[in-house]
């Protein structure tokens, strides 16, 4: 898997935009979008890890952090 669970685009920027422009905007494309029906026999977390992540399956985890700064 060489893709992330984020998409990005470069919005149009006018030379007259009043705020300093954000040149690349990022948005979430979470795992469920790419899995219309969950395949069977996916690898699983240990019970402790599963509790921490909120799911038994690593394939469903895309995570989110404050540092990403999705606008």
């Amino acid at each position, binding site marked *: 898997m060489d*893709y992330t669970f984020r998409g990005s685009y470069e919005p149009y920027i006018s030379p007259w935009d009043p705020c300093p422009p954000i040149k690349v905007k990022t948005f979430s494309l979470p795992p469920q979008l790419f899995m219309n029906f969950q395949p069977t026999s996916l690898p699983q977390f240990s019970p402790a890890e599963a509790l921490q992540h909120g799911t038994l399956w690593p394939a469903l985890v895309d995570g989110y952090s404050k540092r990403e700064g999705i606008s």
Partner: protein
Amino acid sequence: MWVYEKKLLYPVEVKECNPKLARYIAEQYGGADGELAAALRYMNQRYTVPDKVIGVLNDIATEEFSHLEMLATMIYKLTKDATPEQLEEAGLGAHYVNHGHALFYENAAGVPFTTTYFQAKGDPIADLYEDIAAEEKARATYQWIIDISDDAWINDSLKFLRERENVHSLRFREAVEVLKEERDRKKIF
């Protein structure tokens, strides 16, 4: 900016005075899943979605206003020259007291329109999924109005409007697919 054409998107033929049917059509005029909510939702969300799907939202919002205009024509003609007694019998007594023969953005039960009927989440996937759901709910609403109406002419126009909901739903689904293609690759260091 818009260019206005002084004609309806699809013909609306009103052959008989029927204030009760007008009241039911109000659900699509000023109701939660109606054309006004749809038009305002898309016209507003369009500013903060990725460039590739701005056009879909803008075009569909514009079309929704033309649907709103068809519904307004139906409501206006179905209630035009109806007596206060006829309006009261149709459940529009309170409407007449407040608005006379004017149209108003309210649902079939007379609840006034509110922008809390829709959302702008600033997350493209969340917004587009709401838009798909809105189209399916509007389609269902048209079905129930067609079921309760015995006016073949009005139903012909309503069937046209129902079909447009199908088309819009597909366009929004396609917009989701377009965004999925924008998926970023992992950076390999």
